[in-house]
């Protein structure tokens, strides 16, 4: 199972300021390893963010997003106790997620 998404957040006046870091190689498919072989493309294609059960944001990514992607956004209409969940799926079908309970 791929590494968990790291999430930090601060709730203020109903708006959750969310910052996340997703361990992932984000290989473009054009780099070579020390032996000279092409490293296959391996990157997050889709990110989906939830507030409790509700999807609030999604993102489509290409391989040019940096390694170990950072992603920050703001969710409105939040209350303490709400769970912010971030999930991703990559081009190989692997996935992971992370959760944060807002205080």
């Amino acid at each position: 199972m791929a590494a968990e998404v790291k999430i930090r957040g601060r709730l203020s006046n109903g708006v959750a300021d969310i910052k996340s870091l997703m361990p992932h190689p984000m290989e473009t498919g054009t780099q070579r390893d020390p032996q000279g072989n092409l490293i296959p493309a391996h990157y997050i294609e889709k990110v989906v963010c939830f507030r409790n059960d509700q999807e609030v944001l999604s993102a489509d990514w290409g391989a040019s997003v940096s390694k170990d992607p950072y992603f920050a956004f703001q969710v409105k209409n939040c209350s303490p106790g709400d769970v912010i969940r971030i999930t991703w799926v990559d081009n190989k079908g692997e996935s992971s997620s992370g959760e944060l309970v807002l205080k």
Partner: protein
Amino acid sequence: MARHLILATAFALIASWQPPASAADPAADSALDRIDPEADREAMRNFYRQRFPGVPLEAHKDGVYAFDENARAQWLEMEDFPPYEIAIDEGAELFETPFADGAGYADCFGDGAVKGRYPYFDDARGEVITLEMAVNDCRAQHGEPPLPYDGQELTELTAYMAYQSRGQVVAVALPASEAAAAAYEDGKRFYTTRRGHLNFACTSCHVQLAGNRLRAERLSASLGHVTHWPVYRFEWQEVGSLHRRFERCNAQVGAEPFPLQSEAYRNLEYFLSYMSNGLELNGPASRK
């Protein structure tokens, strides 16, 4: 005009650091008599005080970010959620994983907040001991094989320990034995010796040209160089050790690098650490 005179004097003082006489020469005085680390440290601090007016000496623990506005802005964005946090988490997990004999790193290092003790000169062993060596010493004590010095596992462990040690201060003891003095001298010799195709010494870039541009970058001061390791360098796309940076730096001037944790690099680290005595430890860090 006075400022130029002061700068010239400070520069002359530090530039007058010739590679010291070899301790192997029987006609030489004792290394302990030759060295004056406090004078060296004061000379270095005075030099950078003059070379970077308005930059507090403490700020050089952040390298070029202490004085390059554009780079600093990007660095602060990164610090929002820095890429080395992943290494800290991995390192924490490694730190907490027991050895086969049931003991763990905590038995050697407590909560890991020990970086302030390293490097130090071990008189019994007759060499400089670094944190990386200490980790492998701990492993050996418990029947575990040593971790490669260029591997991610060791670097993640030291990233966690550096994080735990934040706020400690560089405090290398004054060399008190002949062997320690020789190691200090050896480190200073390395620092001032030209090498490679480009025939640069460390001082060429980090003293003579400190603050100047090298293509799109600016050159950092040697003061503060040791405080923030291991470092997530964007060039490496992963965390790496101080010695890995020495290796890269040597290669960049066309010189044959030394092995990581070789005596040459450990003595260099020892000298540079003494120069940074008093500065706060702020590892791990990210750099371009």
